[in-house]
């Protein structure tokens, strides 16, 4: 998103000619270079002056959809990958959330600056089937102007015996800029990231992490609670053991100052989860007490046949969210679910469909915006590091 230098160089041919033409101090122009953007109050001057140089600029050229804080707290976002919430510190998260918030505006989202990922290639590499995450990344990439291709590895070369690293080498030879990877094995995207020369976004790996889901959940919460996640009491309920969403959310929500609780039957809670900085409950009644948000997780039905929990009936009776159990939470508590839902297993339909308490549709909506924000930040970090190497 550093457009000011190429723009000025192109029209005026450098700092000093630009300073003379615009009748401004050279240090001001230097400031624009450093910031990468031109403050709005100077746009009219620049457009007028550019006309004299035979350049017809419109406000769009100033990238009017500038991210609010690409470098919040003075920390520029410099991460190459998005593999785990652990990769980011608080200012990074603030940057990502502000960018996501920025793209949440439908006007911006539908008419974004397509130069953000212009000339870049985004490859969706999904070793596991997915609809919403993959399409959400595809849409985000396309809206930002990238060339997007999606590869369903699950049904291709891996079946023919190709190893992950072979796939990595193949993909790398296509010179992509961003790889979005989902894999059934924990840590696979991290391994891939060591073998490719582009950015890697983890779109879910085994039972490890799903950082973009956690970010979009945080963004949804910010919207619902006027920007205040700090101090919220959030219960994450259900199959924590198999959930990558839970792991990412615990880290992120803790970082953002929420009080996180995990509620589920002991067989679906990881051993020593109490050392994650959360409170553990086995009963919905005590676990939901005073909660502002109840985040339900999908019960992985395929793993359910008497091994971890006895039956859907018993699971819903003790751990499924219905009106009675929601009544244990704070009045007006909101409900989230990363989808896809098992209605009547972990959540009753009337709650899932109640627009007053369910944030589930908002979560999907936020998904595209948040992913646009993440792609934006990564791409900008790439440009910045390329600039630094030059």
């Amino acid at each position, binding site marked *: 998103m550093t457009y000011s230098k190429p723009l000025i160089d192109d029209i005026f041919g450098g700092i000093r000619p630009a300073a003379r033409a615009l009748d401004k101090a050279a240090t001001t122009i230097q400031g624009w270079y450093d910031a990468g953007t031109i403050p709005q109050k100077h746009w009219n001057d620049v457009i007028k002056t550019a006309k004299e140089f035979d350049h017809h600029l419109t406000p769009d050229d100033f990238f009017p959809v500038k991210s609010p804080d690409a470098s919040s707290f003075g920390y520029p976002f410099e991460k190459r990958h998005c593999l785990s919430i652990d990769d980011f510190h608080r200012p990074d998260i603030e940057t990502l959330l502000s960018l996501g918030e920025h793209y949440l505006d439908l006007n911006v989202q539908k008419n974004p600056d397509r130069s953000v990922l212009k000339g870049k290639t985004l490859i969706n590499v999904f070793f596991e089937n997915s609809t919403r995450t993959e399409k959400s990344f595809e849409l985000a990439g396309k809206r930002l102007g990238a060339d997007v291709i999606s590869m369903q590895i699950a049904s291709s070369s891996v079946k023919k015996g190709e190893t992950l690293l072979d796939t990595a080498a193949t993909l790398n030879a296509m010179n992509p800029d961003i790889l979005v990877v989902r894999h059934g094995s924990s840590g696979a995207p991290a391994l891939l990231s060591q073998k490719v020369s582009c950015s890697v976004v983890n779109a879910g790996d085994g039972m490890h992490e799903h950082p973009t889901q956690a970010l979009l959940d945080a963004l949804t919460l910010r919207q619902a609670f006027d920007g205040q996640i700090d101090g919220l009491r959030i219960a994450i309920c259900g199959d924590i053991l198999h959930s990558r969403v839970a792991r990412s959310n615990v880290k992120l929500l803790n970082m953002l100052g929420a009080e996180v609780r995990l509620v589920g*039957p*002991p*067989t679906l809670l990881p*051993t020593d989860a109490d050392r994650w900085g959360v409170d553990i409950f*086995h*009963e919905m009644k005590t676990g939901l007490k005073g909660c502002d948000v109840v985040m339900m997780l999908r019960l992985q039905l395929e793993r359910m*046949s*008497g*091994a*971890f*929990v*006895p*039956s859907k*009936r*018993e699971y819903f*009776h*003790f751990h499924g969210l219905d009106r009675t159990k929601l009544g244990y939470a704070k009045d007006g508590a909101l409900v989230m679910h990363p989808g896809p839902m098992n209605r009547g297993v972990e959540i009753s339909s009337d709650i899932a469909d109640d627009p007053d308490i369910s944030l589930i549709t908002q979560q999907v909506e936020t998904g595209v915006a948040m992913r646009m924000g993440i792609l934006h930040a990564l791409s900008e970090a790439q440009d910045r590091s390329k600039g630094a190497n030059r």
Partner: protein
Amino acid sequence: MSTLSIANARIIDPASGYDDFGTIVTRDGRIMAFGPHVQTEGDIIDADGHICAPGLIDMRVTTGEPGRENRETIATAAKAAAAGGITSIVIMPETDPVIDDMSLVDFITRRAETAPVNVYAAGALTKGLDGKTLTEIGLMSQAGAVMFSNGTSPIAEAQTMRRLLSYSASFNALIANRAIEPSLSKGAVAHESDLSSRLGLTGAPAAAERIMAERDVALAELTGGRLLIDMISSAEALEVVRRAKSRDLEIACSVSINHLSLNEVDIGDYRTFAKLDPPLREESDRLALLEGINDGTIDVIVSDHDPRPAGEKRLPYAEATTGAVGLEILLAAGLSQVADGRLDLMAFLASVTSNPAALLGLESGRIAKGAPADLIIFNPNAPWVCNSDALLSRSKNTPLDGRRMTGRNLKTICKGRLVFDSSH
């Protein structure tokens, strides 16, 4: 309003250690007052100086209902229990169909509504006792199942046992598992010893019991589940429990009355009525187990009532079924060991009243103001000879037939009603 007084009794309450002569007054199924200076009210039973103690609680009773009513029904078992001084029985899920669903728990409860004693159901740990698929432990607990058991077969897989203990922990449910390492005990019909090898019988070593007990103790420690090591029979397994308890682990352990009364020599001449599961072991094991009751290592004595018609018993030793009836034996056989000086009376009574009550979460099993009026009056010194034909149980399979016993139940009062009287 029905009032019943027991006068002239030696009142023993193992829960509090109370032991004094006096009177007990009960009203509407509850104990109202007891002690030396209590006045009698209403109907009066003269205990004639005999012991009045809480009614026994038997945590392991198998019936044939539903499915095998020729062995025993809930009604006949309850009648036998009342005669034996037992006022609460826990029915094992090993029926046909298996009690692995809340509707079946409900069935047992309904069938027992007219029974003279309290009947509770134990739910199955796994669907159809397959040892693999978890049952609806939460829903069955709510339906009234007081504990969970896999019947006579152990949970073989450690992972399954781990999940069971872990899952049930949130319902605070008691999980009973037999201490049998299945691969070591495969095909065994006796204790592995000098005697069984002379008899040409395949034996299960005591180590098979110890290994499983060790495994379950470790899993209970890992998960925080409530474990009952069901019916140990060897000194080795007892040692495992003793060590676990010395580390303050909340683990309970039971033993069957048969293993306190008999040893492997009783199967000599291939007496199939003494073919039991776990097998009768050596005399040193029996003495160790008795000591385990006295020092509190073993929490509970069960009758392991397992009625079998003669047709299933009168077979060549290896083909005969295991099991013995015990409802009318438990108290008398225990008192016989007390009379022999092997067992402490108070420790014995605790292991059949207050200890099982605490494990099952029952309010009975003690003599206290407000507690249920489940009481028995017994003569600890009465000599008698066990005659299997005189047993009330539908099946008569007992290895103690013809055995001289010391101590016998005289009267049983359940919920304030006299349900058994030996003088009639």
